[in-house]
């Protein structure tokens, strides 16, 4: 347990908790952008530079903006007068606590998490590009097809239906 990890973890936990508890949707979406940025820092700290920068590009750059646009288009900017939690919030919280307790117990008792850290690893973008073009070329093509289909589908779903 060292200081950079503690700072990154504190930022992620605080931002994610704020995103899930704030009343105003705009504040929530900005807090979740901070949480995504903190995760990018965690990836950079774990020697995964390419993934960290991809996280900044995709999540902070695209997904956070997409969420803000959805808030804008659904007029969610005004804070609700009523309770922000749903009618079944108690059971949701109970399930969450049970899930976290199970996961934490497993982490603390598993022998895999007691492994000693390996030496510093160097992963260059060239290595990742080589792997993407040789060993992982089929998943790359499939993911391209999936992204195309998903984006066309999103446009069609969100398109205004024409009045007959």
């Amino acid at each position: 347990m060292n200081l950079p990890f503690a700072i990154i973890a504190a930022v992620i936990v605080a931002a994610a908790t704020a995103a899930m508890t704030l009343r105003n949707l705009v504040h929530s979406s900005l807090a979740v952008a901070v949480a995504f940025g903190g995760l990018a820092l965690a990836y950079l700290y774990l020697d995964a530079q390419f993934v960290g920068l991809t996280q900044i590009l995709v999540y902070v750059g695209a997904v956070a903006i997409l969420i803000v646009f959805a808030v804008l288009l659904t007029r969610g900017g005004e804070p609700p007068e009523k309770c922000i939690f749903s009618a079944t919030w108690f059971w949701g919280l109970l399930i969450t606590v049970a899930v976290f307790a199970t996961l934490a117990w497993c982490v603390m008792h598993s022998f895999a998490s007691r492994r000693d850290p390996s030496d510093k690893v160097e992963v260059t973008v060239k290595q990742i590009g080589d792997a993407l073009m040789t060993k992982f070329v089929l998943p790359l093509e499939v993911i391209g097809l999936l992204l195309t289909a998903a984006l066309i589908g999103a446009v069609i779903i969100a398109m205004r239906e024409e009045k007959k």
Partner: protein
Amino acid sequence: MTPLAGYLLLSAFLFAIGLAGALTRRNAIIVLIGIELMLNAANLNFIAFWRYGPNPEELTGIMFVIFSIAVAAAEAAVGLALIIAIYRHYKTTNMDEINSLKG
């Protein structure tokens, strides 16, 4: 506590926060943000296991996370489009009021 256990606990807590948001909040957009947080917790696990695993030069963890980020981006786009379509139909994003399939 080893570094790997620290990352796994952080990831478990992030997953729990996302799950709590998805299960207890009324607004559909917050539910989608919670799902995004859960996906990110899984990605953090992949990177932590890759970094502290026996052979990190294999790059499998990094590749899995890159593909997982792409799938999550597609999921966010489709999910937000669905929320916008639902809002246009019901004039609300409150999950408690959207309770009929054939509106």
